């Protein structure tokens, strides 16, 4: 029996099978989906950041034209008691290694005791049209008793602060310490030390499609169907089952075409549960489509960390010791618990040898929108710290920034390299593969090298122009567990059917999984049927986030296929009247090794595998051709990259123009280079948005000042440069295909690359950019301050 993997499609830049429907307006997003008798929901959201809810008057709303139903938070709390605060689900292996404390407040479906941020939902109104529902929602009167707003994350941690979750008597809802070696003695022996404060500001995913849910309840079978714009259909089903009190088997959760997610749709929101609840209560299908303003004030924000660091280093720029005390402003709720804060802690180590360090993280509750993962999930914050530190050491020692990095970098011949701390799955971090110095060399060479740049910089300066060079290196744990599922089936037609818990939202998974499965089965990708994001297709699944679907999904498909193929070959051999060891998969069927032609098609084998009379199975082979695998990765695989840019800063207007931007990247085996480039460029553009434009600003009362796309600036085609991509491939030994994740990577480095480049350009003004975003007004201010000092 021979099961070879021939790479006929993996590695090819295949165009996407998803495109045609999306290009012709025939995709189906949640807003496009309708059901007979469907009603429309609108939410009443808090206009204040922090207040006790004294009463909610729905009488005018209930009497408004077209209104069918209305429900307030206090009313709902009487029908469905709020879920009590729970323990965070963290791997036991992690908990036993890391000193930590987490409080886990549970957000109710509607606020009933207090409003904890502007935008928190307090009541729902359901009407015959969205227009009518929104009109009626405006008639809802809420009596608030205002409380002092907790807006500043550091002030929130002080004993005299107002408290967001009063049961805890503190706003510190999470804390942990991560240590390695002996940082105190490292500092004691170091000749050089520096301290800095870094702030990575608050911004968010902002997919072009907002959130949305449609739910319908079938009384006859006591079952619920939920369609939503989500990255996690199985998680939605689980939470809905708990809330509705019906078995998971009676709930179907589906995601249609999803118009972007980037993490913000990666967990279950109160609205995802309330819409099914209301649909059952009314007995009619209910639809809710979030509008853009609602999205900005209620869908999760991200980033928002303040770091106070101290670094010790020697004359050569080697890092000897590193201390960091940081605060994550998590807003009013913390849906992903330790995820972001701990990602930051371990990714701060980057591609470098850190021997002695000590990190303390605190998670602060404030009266802002909840903080949840957005592309990078704690890693852009880590990169801002580490990569600014590298540049600051270089400046202190009058070395070039690439040289300091090179001196601290882990070399290729040191792989695999144990970092001495656990990942959030509890496994020890071991960089499984990669060549960081080579990535650095490639990125530098794409920009012409450091020496050539310095010459160009001097020449430009002589003409009164300010050029700067910025580097940003990172490593990224991708494809995290606990698992992903796949079911592979040989259809009666002979096509290979595959499904998985992965939930695509623009990545092109239908195309990628077809390529992978086509190679596994020696068939054409057109003969692979891919179905995703539907709990009725596969009982257990995890979902798409954390750069994991190609990594974990492909491995599950591989293992399920290999098991199923043994059966296919046994049946094929039976039909060919030879031994199972003498046959192989080829040309969409099974043939005798060394005897070309006469393949038995997979359709014939599927027919022979059926249960019942006159089947073609050999003795001992069970009926049916379907296998399911749950891939439980041993731990994450480590992707890596170096971003490098040359910028020009106009010191008069503060405008930053990106002259060149190169990305040298390593994500192991490449499944589809066309789509890979798309992921990297898309992520990098989002990173540049965060670096230069996007910003959630709150005033002292906790009012969001950037609550529309006129104020929250997303990058457009004229803001983003062409990126030059350089690929390096170090396949991981940790999964069958050698793939590492790539979804998030692009977004990690741009903020610090810009911070480094602008700081480099304005070095003569003594300007340091240690916080983001880097806006024209800050640049002009820094230039003026520097000029005044001279």
């Amino acid at each position, binding site marked *: 029996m021979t099961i070879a993997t021939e790479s006929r499609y993996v590695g090819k830049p295949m*165009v*996407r099978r*998803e*495109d*045609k429907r*999306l*290009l*012709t*307006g*025939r*995709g*189906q*997003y949640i*807003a*496009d989906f309708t059901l007979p008798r469907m009603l429309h929901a609108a939410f009443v959201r808090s206009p204040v950041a922090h207040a006790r809810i004294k009463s909610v008057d729905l009488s*005018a709303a209930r*009497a*408004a*034209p*077209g209104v069918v139903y209305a429900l307030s938070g206090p009313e709902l709390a009487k029908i469905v008691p709020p879920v009590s605060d729970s323990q965070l689900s963290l791997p036991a292996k992690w908990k036993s290694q890391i000193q930590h404390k987490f409080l886990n407040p549970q957000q109710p479906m509607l606020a009933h005791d207090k409003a904890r941020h502007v935008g928190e939902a307090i009541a729902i109104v359901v009407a015959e049209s969205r*227009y009518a529902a929104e009109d009626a929602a405006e008639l809802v009167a809420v009596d608030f008793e205002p409380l002092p707003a907790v807006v500043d994350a550091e002030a929130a941690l002080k004993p005299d602060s107002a408290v967001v979750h009063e049961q805890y008597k503190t706003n510190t809802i999470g804390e942990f310490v991560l240590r390695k070696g002996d940082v105190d003695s490292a500092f004691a022996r170091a000749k050089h030390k520096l301290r800095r404060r870094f702030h990575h500001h608050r911004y968010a*995913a*902002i*997919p*072009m*499609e*907002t959130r949305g849910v449609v739910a319908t309840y079938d009384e006859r079978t006591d079952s619920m169907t939920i369609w939503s714009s989500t990255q996690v259909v199985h998680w939605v089903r689980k939470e809905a089952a708990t809330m509705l009190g019906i078995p998971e088997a009676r709930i179907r959760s589906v995601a249609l*075409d*999803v*118009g*972007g997610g*980037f993490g913000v749709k990666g967990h279950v929101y109160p609205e995802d549960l309330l819409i099914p609840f209301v649909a059952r209560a009314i007995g009619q299908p209910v639809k809710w489509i979030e*509008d*853009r*303003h609602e999205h900005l004030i209620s869908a999760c924000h991200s980033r928002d960390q303040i770091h106070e660091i101290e670094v010790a280093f020697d004359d050569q720029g080697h890092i000897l010791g590193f201390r960091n005390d940081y605060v994550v402003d998590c807003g009013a709720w913390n849906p992903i618990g330790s995820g972001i804060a701990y990602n930051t802690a371990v990714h701060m180590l980057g591609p470098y040898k850190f021997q002695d360090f000590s990190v303390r993280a605190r998670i602060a509750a404030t009266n802002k929108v909840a903080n949840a993962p957005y592309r990078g999930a704690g890693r852009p914050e880590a990169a801002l710290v580490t990569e600014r530190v590298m540049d600051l050491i270089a400046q202190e020692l009058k070395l070039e920034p690439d040289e300091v990095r090179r001196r601290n970098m882990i070399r290729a011949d040191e792989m695999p390299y144990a970092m001495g701390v656990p990942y959030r799955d509890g496994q020890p971090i071991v960089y499984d593969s990669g060549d960081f110095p080579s990535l650095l060399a490639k990125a530098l060479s794409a920009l012409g090298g450091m020496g050539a740049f310095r010459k160009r910089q001097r020449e430009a300066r002589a003409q009164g122009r300010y050029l700067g060079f910025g580097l940003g290196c990172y490593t990224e744990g991708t494809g995290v567990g606990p698992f992903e599922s796949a079911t592979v089936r040989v259809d009666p037609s002979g096509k290979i059917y595959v499904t998985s818990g992965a939930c695509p*939202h*623009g*990545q*092109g998974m239908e195309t990628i999984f077809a390529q992978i499965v086509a190679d596994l089965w020696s068939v054409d990708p057109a003969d692979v049927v891919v179905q995703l994001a539907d709990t009725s297709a596969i009982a257990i699944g995890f979902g798409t986030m954390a750069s994991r679907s190609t990594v974990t999904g492909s491995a599950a498909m591989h293992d399920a296929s290999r098991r199923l193929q043994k059966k296919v070959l046994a049946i094929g051999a039976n039909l060919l009247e030879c031994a199972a060891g003498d046959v192989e998969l080829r040309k969409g069927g099974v043939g005798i090794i060394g005897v070309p032609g006469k393949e038995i098609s997979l359709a014939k084998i599927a027919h022979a595998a059926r249960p019942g009379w006159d089947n073609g199975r050999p003795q001992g082979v069970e009926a049916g051709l379907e296998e399911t695998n749950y891939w439980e990765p041993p731990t994450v695989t480590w992707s890596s990259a170096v971003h490098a840019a040359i910028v020009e800063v106009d010191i008069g207007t503060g405008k930053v123009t990106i002259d060149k931007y190169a990305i040298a990247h390593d994500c192991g085996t490449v499944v589809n280079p*066309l*789509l890979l*480039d*798309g992921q990297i*460029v*898309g*992520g990098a*553009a*989002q990173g540049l948005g965060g670096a230069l434009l996007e910003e959630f600003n709150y005033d002292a009362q906790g009012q969001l000042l950037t609550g*529309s*796309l*006129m104020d929250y600036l*997303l990058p*457009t*085609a*004229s*803001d*983003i440069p*062409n*990126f030059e991509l350089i690929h390096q491939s170090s396949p991981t030994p940790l999964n069958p295909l050698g793939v590492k994740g790539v979804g998030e990577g*692009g977004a990690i480095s741009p903020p610090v690359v810009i911070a480094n480049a602008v700081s480099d350009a304005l070095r003569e003004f003594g300007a340091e950019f240690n916080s983001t975003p880097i806006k024209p007004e800050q640049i002009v201010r820094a230039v003026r301050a520097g000029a005044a000092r001279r």
Partner: protein
Amino acid sequence: MTEPKMSLVDVRLTVNGKPYAGQCEPRKLLVDFLREDLGLTGTHAGCEHGICGACTILFNGEAARSCIMLAVQANGAEITTVEGLAKGAELHPLQQAFHEHHALQCGFCTPGMLMAAIDFLKVNPAPTEHEVREAMSSVICRCTGYQNIVKAILAAAPKMRASA
């Protein structure tokens, strides 16, 4: 009922070459009329305040945002939406270029992107990359980083010139 329902107005317009007649409230947005009353859900509402451009259509041949227009304003107008671009199974050259250059990921902005680009290429049939980037800054894409959209438009331009 505390107040009477809003009176309805007639809207007659041509969409993708086909005449349509409908009735709606005077306040109904054109994008909602296209999507809900005519079932043409290819036009997407991404921000409903005229910034993102996902709802861009051709209004009497010119790109316009259908989320900041009322349906009644389109009375008598000739509208083209993304559904009107392909000829049967044959994609419009711009759609084909988007496909070949991987100029879409989630696809939500794509209809607006296509309609805005068609108007732009009509006005400027042989643009430079800089001109494409400037013109296409009217539609926001969150997935692609624009690089492949720019490539696709530059690749489609000569084909559209040839077929014009």
